[in-house]
């Protein structure tokens, strides 16, 4: 039925099957849209956030998806700037993932802020010292870049490419992709870092506050590194998932393994810095503001296991596995390791968002807990559903994996 829209020579499931697949996601999206509508129309009293828990599920989601979406810039950087051509087979997929993550994050941010119509004030009256300004500027520019990177993929759709002007434009745009890759890498470096700086500068929250390295707190660099570790793992994991769901080989095993290696290398560097940073924080930064660090791990479910999980279980362990060639070449090791890498980064974002806010600062204040309302969960699911839908549509109608035909036709 929609065959003429599908790239020539690749196999896609029948249309009815596809509809069956996207239907539940579309319903989830509709539910999410309703939740988001309530939040916009009625105000954020629809959420369970409050004056202490001023950030909640959404900001956590934003931080996490943006870290996961780092695959787009990192892959682009390696492919176009460092000429790692083996990544050509995943770049399209990485771009789509990046676009989903970033646009999703921005949509949620627009629901999250109380006055979305004033979002442009950040551009109009920017406080250049705020990490959030840096994030806003970079995020908007980078989303533009991602759209420009995604546009050629769309224009190469079997039907759209028949329009010569699109194809010629695509061709020329694609030739200049190296510029976008460079700009993307530059912007990503800053906003990934600024997202980390977001918490690192919180002098009033000694759990999050970190010393400056140059003009940025150390979390700036930790976020960049962890995002670079998470990005390839996310591309790897989604590719693997798509392979499983579509029952096809899409990418060469060597590429998968190479992505794993990238993750591993970045992760071990990250863990190294993170460990040093944590030690400095526990022994100097935090106590000097009057906050004994052990108190942080004294409350509710947040024990020292959090730190252990972050650094060892989801850090050192997958890093060591991924760094060993023999292990990462086997899917049974590679995939769980990628999952661990992502879990570690997600946990890091969770801890910085939720634990920071849950912990009291004043002695007589109490540890607070927070459970998102259904409207928050709905808006969250909206982004997930949007991501799945956009990816499914892209996978079906766009040529995401250049090696697909090759791998399905054994020459």
């Amino acid at each position, binding site marked *: 039925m929609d065959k003429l829209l599908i790239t020539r020579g690749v196999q896609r499931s029948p249309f009815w099957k596809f509809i069956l697949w996207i239907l539940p996601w579309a319903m989830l999206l509709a539910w999410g849209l309703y939740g988001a509508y309530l939040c916009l129309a009625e105000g954020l009293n629809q959420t369970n956030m409050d004056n202490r828990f001023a950030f909640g599920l959404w900001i956590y989601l934003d931080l996490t998806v943006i870290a996961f979406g780092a695959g787009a810039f990192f892959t682009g950087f390696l492919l176009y700037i460092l000429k790692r051509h083996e990544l050509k087979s995943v770049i399209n997929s990485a771009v789509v993932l990046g676009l989903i993550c970033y646009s999703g994050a921005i949509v949620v941010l627009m629901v999250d802020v109380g006055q979305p*119509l004033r979002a442009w*004030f950040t551009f109009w009256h920017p406080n250049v010292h705020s990490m959030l300004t840096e994030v806003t500027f970079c995020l908007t520019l980078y989303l533009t870049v991602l759209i420009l990177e995604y546009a050629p993929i769309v224009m190469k759709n079997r039907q759209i490419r028949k329009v010569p002007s699109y194809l010629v434009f695509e061709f020329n745009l694609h030739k200049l992709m190296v510029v976008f890759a460079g700009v993307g890498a530059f912007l990503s470096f800053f906003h990934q870092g600024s997202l980390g700086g977001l918490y690192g500068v919180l002098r009033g929250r000694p759990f999050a506050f970190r010393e400056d390295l140059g003009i940025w707190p150390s979390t700036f660099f930790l976020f960049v590194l962890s995002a670079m570790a998470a990005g390839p793992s996310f591309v790897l994991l989604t590719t693997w998932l798509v392979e499983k769901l579509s029952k096809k080989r899409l990418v060469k095993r060597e590429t998968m393994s190479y992505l794993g290696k990238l993750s591993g290398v970045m992760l071990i560097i990250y863990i190294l810095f993170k460990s040093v940073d944590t030690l400095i924080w526990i022994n100097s930064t935090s106590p000097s503001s009057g906050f004994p660090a052990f108190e942080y791990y004294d409350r509710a479910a947040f024990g020292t296991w959090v730190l252990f999980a972050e650094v060892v279980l989801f850090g050192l362990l997958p890093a060591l596995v991924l760094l060993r060639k023999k292990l990462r070449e086997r899917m049974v090791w590679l995939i769980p390791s990628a999952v661990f890498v992502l879990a570690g980064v997600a946990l890091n974002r969770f801890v910085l968002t939720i634990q920071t806010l849950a912990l009291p600062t004043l002695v007589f204040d109490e540890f607070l807990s927070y459970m998102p309302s259904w409207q928050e969960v709905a808006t969250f699911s909206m982004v997930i559903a949007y991501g799945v839908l956009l990816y499914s549509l892209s996978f079906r109608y766009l040529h995401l994996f250049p090696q697909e035909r090759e791998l399905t036709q054994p020459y």
Partner: protein
Amino acid sequence: MPLTLTRRNVLKFVGGSIAGMMVTPLPWKLLDDVAIWTQNGPWIPKVPRGPITTAFSTCALCSAGCGIQARCVNTIPYALSGIRNHPANNGTLCPSGVAGHHLAYHPLRLKSPVQLFRREETIEVQPVSSEEILGKISAAVAISRNAGEGTLALLDQRPGRSVSLFYRNQLAMHGRGVYLVSPTDPILITQCLDEMVGTSFGPVGYNLERVRTVLSFSAPVLDGWGTPVQTSKMLAHRGSSGQKGARVIQIDSRYSRSAQLADQWIPIKPNTEAALAFGLAHVLLREGLYDKALIQSRALDFQTKGKHSYFDLVGRFTPDHTAECTGVSRDVIVATARALAAQGPSLVIGDGDSGGGPLGREAEMAVWGINILLGALGSNGAIVHHRAVPAPKEFSANGLSPVQGVSDIPDHSIGVLLIDASEQGDPLPWSLLERKLIPDQSLVVAFSPTLTGLAQHTHYIIPTPAHLEALTDVPTMLSSATGTFSVSSPLLRRPEGTMDAREIMGKIFEVEGTLEELLKQRTSAIFESRRGRVFKASTGSSVQLTELGSSDELWAELTAGGMWMDDPVRSKPLPEFHFMGRSPAAYERMLDAGEGISSSNEPDAPRKITVLPYGRRAEVGGAQLSPLMTKLYQESGLHRSSKVAVLNPATAKEFNVANGGRGTLVTERGTQEVTIRVDGAVMPGVAEIAVSPEPVGQAGTEIVQEQDILELIVPDQAPTWRAFRATLQKA
């Protein structure tokens, strides 16, 4: 050059202008301003604009009589503050007073008479004409007068006003009129002293400046009991001021605000205050720490032959026995008694908590007893005489109906119950009033500006002007050392359709006159007395009354935030008196009060907890709270809402409820859901629950009946509701 007006030229001109404009700051500035304008949508309330003026009046929310200075826009007050140097409040106000100007906008405000229909959880109202209600009342009054079926009762929630004298006068003339006050009203405490002395001892007050030690029996002495100036003085030694204040010892079953702020808190088993009073008296007597000569000469029942005497009574309450009864340790009892005697002048205050009900007549007499032993009623004591505020003779020409507590009249006796100022005064369990009514035949009408508090239980409500819309005088506070008089003059125009209580009563009893005339007559009487001093808000200082030229001048001062204060009088010597009062079974009643018959004979059933309801006098306890009071009750934890039960951690564990969890309290009168709060400072085995109404911040679609813990009180259980037993289950 010929100027041709072609389309092309026009377009060129417009285009050029737009392009040129872009390099000027104009569009950008405009964009900037638009950004700001867009943020002022119609949904954001606009602040009023208009001339700013200042007006003075007196707060009538309680009897402290604080002077208020109102900043007004278009003559509507938008902010209240205290009048500087005012003898009652010296520039400050309590939270209720600060937000007093909001009461006119209470979401449950009534502006026309209504008939009430109570449904399951809500109340429906239907408008009726005031003539119809007045007709019904008049008919019922006539029946009560002529047929003798049931009495005509008026419950005055703000006794002591000039209009209260008018009521008592009219009720006395009616023949079957009864003048009722809340059982917690301070007037009844003075009545206890009268009973001991046998005659009217005259109004007494407290001269706190003389006091070095204050022993409070559950009275909220540091929390709205006295005027702000008095409270401030009692706390003066705190902090860095270097001033002297009084040492406050708080005897309280609850960790009340006063217990928190007092220098010493003596926790006591609920309802055992009388025993502790006797125990303290025991120590004073045993150690000879009292004026023997005075007691010997004046006390008629100190030691009597053949009859049980006060000495016998107190003799039973040895420190050990008292400790057993009250839970207060023997050493604390002895030390406290000695401290009262040694660090005098001392003052013992009964009174009790406004929401928690009266201490009880016997306990109050026991407290007066200690005061007498300590010499607090003597010429150097802290309890001083003062004269009644002068009133014209015609106010009492036809006699005054006696003041009676609600508990003092027989059950099923009231035919018509009128409740005046039902939004004010101390909270009162409806069950207590209900059993006084003739079942199914009585008519209950409230005069109230809002559909809150007791008014929710009536058949009809005639709306009265709200606070600061109404003209009223402020009676003398119990704690005041001299008589005072001030007038709360309206700062707001009262809505059409409201009537003040004098108008309503005038129509019922067919008496001419207005409230203003009444108050002016009283002012004249004060002026005629040529006594006392007058605080003038305009200058912030006081002058002798005699310096004022006329009664009108006094009226002008009083209605503009001024206050008249009587001159102090030399205390009368204590006449002959009975420690235990004059009733035939005085000894037995006192003994029962001390030994605590009501609470100890009930077996300690599992799952039963002692509920300690409490009110806040600082917030008038009554049924009117500014919508902004959500800040104290809901938006911060400063004041517990009436849906919160505070428990000791051990008790919470025993009842298997957790901090923040829900629990259900059950008595035979009903059930109530509460949120559990755990507080290590609270006495084990009790649940502290506030009885104040919830502030209503926003009007809902329907009127929800107030749910108060007082609803759970089983009325026959005890004369007071300070503590009652209820089952606590985890919800």
